[in-house]
């Protein structure tokens, strides 16, 4: 009997989709479909596919934070799988930073305009966004390049989120530009209640915009309300911190500008929250910069380009919290359904690349004469 190559290919694609939807690790995709789901409850009380978890088991702040950590982790694991199954193109994200980032997101005051906090994140900041109200399904849409991707309509990498209605500024792959942009968002907030929060990694401080940030935010008589956050995971892609930094800590550089600083164990919810709470309060009231260096882990490498494999030596912040197993089951089940929904949504059309090149003009003053 002759084999039909196209039929084989179709079967293979369906098989890959099924493995991805069910969240099977790439290494076992040749095994039973049900191996990966045997521990999941099949009738969990789930949220709607299109709304993020309201933290059904969370009755206090700590539970919200820990559950957000878990949701962020599960989401990144699913995004990594999508790349491994060839359904998504590239992954980079922040597993290992969830404790610190979830605390930061909990303290953020999201909304539109200068009276709300403005976040300029980097691509490891998704736990902040989830805590601030973003939805996991939208991260999946971006990863899979769907028309429905609200962040970039299929234009940008995974975890490059933004939401103007929440003052969540765009993530740019060239790191350190957020430090320069934060100078402007903070200036716009000089006479407002909001503050700017800029987040970067330790390697991004090698670049010049980090120096600009320290200089501009501390000009005499012109201090800017900026919370400067560096999540230090000790490595920039493949280059170790120790090989590039003469000083053991980045806060030294901020202190040289008279900026208040704190170094925090970013794997600890308690330490992270209390430090950030103080830092937020200081910037809000003093309208001056504050610098926080958080020591965090990098659990899955820099990006999918280096395999996104679990790094055995890196400490996992979730190990300190031991969230209830049913939380993971609920989140996984919801992500499973969200993935299924997103896969059914249309991929982005090539012609949509022509959209949004220009923004709309401002309101034209009625009295202004138009000349030919």
């Amino acid at each position: 009997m002759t084999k039909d190559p196209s039929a084989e290919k179709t079967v293979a694609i369906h098989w890959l989709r099924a493995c991805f939807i069910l969240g099977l690790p790439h290494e076992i995709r040749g095994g039973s479909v049900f191996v990966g789901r045997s521990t999941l409850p099949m009738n969990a009380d789930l949220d709607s596919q299109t709304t993020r978890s309201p933290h059904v088991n969370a009755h206090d702040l700590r539970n919200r934070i820990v559950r957000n950590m878990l949701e962020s982790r599960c989401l990144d694991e699913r995004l990594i799988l999508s790349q491994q199954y060839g359904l998504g193109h590239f992954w980079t994200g922040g597993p290992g930073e969830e404790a610190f980032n979830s605390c930061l997101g909990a303290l953020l005051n999201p909304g539109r305009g200068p009276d709300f906090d403005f976040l300029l994140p980097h691509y490891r900041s998704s736990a902040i966004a989830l805590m601030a109200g973003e939805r996991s399904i939208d991260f999946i849409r971006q990863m899979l390049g769907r028309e429905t991707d609200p962040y970039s309509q299929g234009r940008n990498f995974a975890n490059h989120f933004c939401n103007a209605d929440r003052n969540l500024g765009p993530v740019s792959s060239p790191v350190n530009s957020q430090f320069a942009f934060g100078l402007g968002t903070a200036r716009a907030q000089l006479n407002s209640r909001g503050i700017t929060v800029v987040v970067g990694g330790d390697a991004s401080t090698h670049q010049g915009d980090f120096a600009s940030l320290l200089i501009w935010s501390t000009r005499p008589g012109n201090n800017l309300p900026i919370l400067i956050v560096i999540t230090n995971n000790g490595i920039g892609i493949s280059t170790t911190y120790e090989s590039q930094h003469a000083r053991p800590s980045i806060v030294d550089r901020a202190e040289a500008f008279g900026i208040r600083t704190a170094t925090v164990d970013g794997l600890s919810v308690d330490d992270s929250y209390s430090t950030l709470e103080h830092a937020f309060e200081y910037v809000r009231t003093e309208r001056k910069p504050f610098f926080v260096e958080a020591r965090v882990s990098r659990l899955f490498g820099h990006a999918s380009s280096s395999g996104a494999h679990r790094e055995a030596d890196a400490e996992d912040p979730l190990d300190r919290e031991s969230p209830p197993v049913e939380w993971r089951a609920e989140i996984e089940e919801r992500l499973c359904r969200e993935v299924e929904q997103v896969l059914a949504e249309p991929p982005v059309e090539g012609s949509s690349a022509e959209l949004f090149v220009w923004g709309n003009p401002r309101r034209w003053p009625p009295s202004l004469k138009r000349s030919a």
Partner: protein
Amino acid sequence: MATIAQAIRLALRYAEQELGVRNIFGQDVGPPLGGAFTITQGLDSAWNSPLDERGIVGTAAGLAMMGETCVCEIQFGDYIFNTVDLLRLIGNTCWATRGQFPMPMVLMAPVGAGRHGGIYHSHSIESILSHLPGWKIVMPSNSRDAYGLMVTAILDGNPVAYLIPKALALSPAQALEGEPVNLKERINAPVKGRENWRPDWPEIPAFSVPIGKLDRRREGDRLTVVSYGRMIGIVESAIEQISESRVDGHIDLLDLRTLVPYDMDGLTASVRKTGALLVVNEDSEQTNFGEHLIRVVSEATSPRTAVLLGARHLPGVGLSQSLEDHTVPTVDRVAKALDHMLPGTD
């Protein structure tokens, strides 16, 4: 007659009074200097930034992300190169965020040669900027356009590079409607004793000049000449060198005014009429923005000839007069090109 610098200053005054512009900034933009070319003297919103082009551009971008239109200045176009990746990000931010973050901002930069600026005060940067999608680029050649284009750039809602032909900035160029005869005394800061000086702003009826529309400076049927900025005056002087009978009614001189988005309808209508195109600018001739204009217009109109006259592709514009004349188009070189391209001279 208002200089280009004064015209921009008056437009910025209107912008801070009526258009909500609260931040006009850059190196030396605030008092006491008010800009290397005096453009921002006396403005309430003008302030001095650190000498840091990336900080200047980044601040403008952040204000734009917050929805606040500002006007920033890079003191000379030559100093913009260390900001190119930020400019690229600014240009793609509206697109990359699905329209969530349009970037309303104006970036001013004096450009071009003609003032013996030497290697680092003579660059033209429009060709490089034209490779950054999402930016609009304008360059006035006279005071009236300088005023109107600035007003429109501020209202445009997108990042606009406003290029100032530095050699023209301080020369009286064109009277604005309602301009007082003593404009200089009223709005130019004195050289000495400016600590307590305040400008006496005249009432100038505000007006705009549309982005994307060229201005026909001279009408003719045999040769289309497209130029902008300082080169408009050079072309006009070159035309005067040629006998009137050869040029009268034969040269369609178009001041592009907006480089991106350029006035394709205006360009093609002219070249269809004349069948010949000469583009004159002072940017380096290799991968010059004018080459793009020639390609798109040629594809649309199939002219019998199309020529670019730009600056020689050299590492810089030398300081000495002889080096500058050798490098950028001069009146004589333009006149020679015109003479060659006008029919009947082959």
